[in-house]
């Protein structure tokens, strides 16, 4: 059904996307005003816009719950869906958009005090809002080319945000390497769009779901699968294409690192999940994705053991977590996809806390080396506590929320006969606790000199403590998140008929 989400004449774009895009367009004006007045106008505008978008995602969720088929199609100017760009909002899109905007609000509040010594802050907050707009647009797109437009919006914002502190060499090299690999991935994505158009006749996701079950598997579908895997896999950091991530995540400013690890790579994984489930049937991609999951997990965990830089270790840990999520994708059932979505939400919280509190430690100590950060637990007790809880959660210790989503992921792999993958996953989880415990031991050691307690500034401290409370709460009582993730996974895997009928029978 076609819904008008904003009561403006002819203009219907999902409200979160509109709010974030308009916020990004108006942010330079706020920056000009902020130069005249002493007030921190740019930061408050960013926090206000992200909070408004979180509220509108919640409203969209309520509207979806109330409507019959749980799918809303939004397209403006009276365009007809199979050949025009449209937004198709279903539970999966709302779940991902909720994760993205939630992390966005928290990171916006954190970066008010982290970035206060930097220059070019107007451009930072503008690009921050455009990054969030691109991410929410990707998750709500119903047409492949609309997804590509928002994909490019997200990509160009993230290239410049990675290379933001351009006075040192590290961010520039990391930003350029990330740029070349990610632009190549976009070209592969455009190629796969050409093949899909040639086979199906339109670029709408619902037409893929209608057309592909009737077509046989030719060598061209295998080539299409390979190009899609490369196109989305560069952004999602699967095994051979992950080499940009260990350079880009440490060199970015810490709030941007938290966003990148927390939501940007998961949006690449969302794109892969959406297209693979609509185009191919799960038996086709079970084995290749299982092999990629195994390689991603193992290579990332083994390389992380050798790291001496705190943020680089966290970056390799992100790649390993993407490997765990690919296990859920390889299972191919709604239970596996539910584990994937739940782990996306939990990982965004845990990795967000890890990068933000690591950023607080680095902001105070001016070094990223793990050996030099020895004993900082005595100087900054609360921040070290948050980093410890985040790392225990990433390793999968029971009362925290990482345990539940990993349990669901590995359980779903057993259900479809990939027992070797479950064994490998559990061994990898144990291996990852190895390098987390090295960091925790260094945090708790006694320092050489006693500097006294010198905590992080108030916004950074409050945000990390709040996220740690959420980690513990969702670990003990995960039911709300599991229910929403379950509805989202069912909407993707089982109820494809709802998705198709929303476009083809208005």
């Amino acid at each position, binding site marked *: 059904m076609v819904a008008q989400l904003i009561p403006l004449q002819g203009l219907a774009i999902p409200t979160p996307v509109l709010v974030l895009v308009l916020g990004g367009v108006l942010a330079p004006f706020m920056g000009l005003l902020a130069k005249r007045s002493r007030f921190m106008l740019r930061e408050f505008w960013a926090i206000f816009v992200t909070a408004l978008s979180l509220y509108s995602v919640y409203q969209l969720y309520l509207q979806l719950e109330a409507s019959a088929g749980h799918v809303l199609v939004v397209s403006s100017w009276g365009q007809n869906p199979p050949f025009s760009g449209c937004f198709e909002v279903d539970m999966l899109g709302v779940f991902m958009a909720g994760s993205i905007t939630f992390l966005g609000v928290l990171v916006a509040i954190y970066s008010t005090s982290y970035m206060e010594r930097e220059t070019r802050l107007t451009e930072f907050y503008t690009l921050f809002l455009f990054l969030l707009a691109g991410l929410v647009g990707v998750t709500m797109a119903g047409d492949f080319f609309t997804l590509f*437009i928002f994909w490019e919006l997200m990509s160009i914002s993230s290239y410049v945000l990675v290379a933001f502190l351009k006075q040192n060499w*590290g961010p520039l090299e990391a930003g350029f390497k990330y740029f070349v690999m990610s*632009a190549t991935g976009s*070209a592969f994505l*455009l190629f796969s769009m050409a093949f899909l158009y040639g086979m199906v006749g339109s670029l709408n996701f619902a037409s893929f779901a209608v057309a592909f079950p009737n077509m046989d598997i030719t060598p061209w579908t295998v080539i299409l699968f390979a190009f899609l895997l490369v196109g989305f896999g560069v952004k999602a950091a699967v095994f051979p294409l992950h080499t940009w991530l260990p350079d880009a995540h440490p060199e970015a400013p810490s709030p941007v690192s938290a966003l990148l690890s927390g939501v940007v790579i998961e949006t690449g994984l969302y794109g892969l999940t959406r297209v693979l489930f609509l185009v191919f049937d799960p038996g086709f991609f079970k084995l290749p994705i299982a092999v990629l999951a195994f390689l991603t997990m193992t290579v990332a965990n083994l390389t992380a053991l050798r790291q001496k830089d705190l943020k680089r270790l966290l970056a390799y840990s992100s790649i390993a977590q993407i490997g765990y999520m690919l296990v859920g994708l390889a299972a191919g059932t709604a239970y596996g996809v539910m584990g994937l979505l739940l782990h996306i939400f939990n990982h965004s919280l845990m990795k967000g806390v890890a990068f933000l509190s690591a950023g607080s430690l680095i902001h105070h100590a001016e070094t990223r080396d793990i050996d030099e950060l020895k004993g900082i637990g005595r100087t900054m007790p609360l921040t070290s506590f948050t980093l410890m809880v985040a790392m225990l959660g990433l390793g999968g210790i029971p009362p925290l929320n990482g345990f539940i989503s990993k349990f669901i992921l590995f359980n779903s792999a057993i259900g479809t006969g990939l027992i070797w993958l479950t064994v490998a996953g559990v061994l990898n989880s144990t291996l990852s606790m190895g390098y987390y415990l090295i960091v925790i031991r260094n945090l708790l050691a006694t320092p050489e000199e006693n500097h006294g307690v010198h905590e992080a500034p108030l916004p950074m401290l409050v945000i990390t403590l709040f996220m740690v409370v959420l980690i513990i709460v969702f670990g003990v009582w995960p039911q709300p998140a599991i229910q929403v993730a379950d509805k989202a996974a069912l909407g993707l895997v089982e109820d494809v008929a709802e998705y198709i009928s929303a476009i083809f029978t208005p």
Partner: protein
Amino acid sequence: MTTQLSVVLVFIFLQFLIGLSCLTVKRDMVRLLIGVEILFNAANLCFIALSSNVTGFVDPFPQTIVMMAIVLDGSVIAVGLAIVINAYKHYGTLDIRRLMRLKW
């Protein structure tokens, strides 16, 4: 059966492979950007080849996609060039083999 589309696809794949080998072999930053541009061009050509498949008719859908894709690629390359200009301003050389300092 060799149709006209098959022959054009051979050349499109060839251009795609040229773009990939340009990315792996060249060491100057601007040449890497040109390699990315060659890849985007090959993808656009694939759309155009599909647009003129039926003889006597023209399919308007891929042509509109190409018009929008060219704009998007252009803005991506512009951002890349801004990063390259910064690198040259700070370090004077554009050779990526001499400037690779982040290891392992």
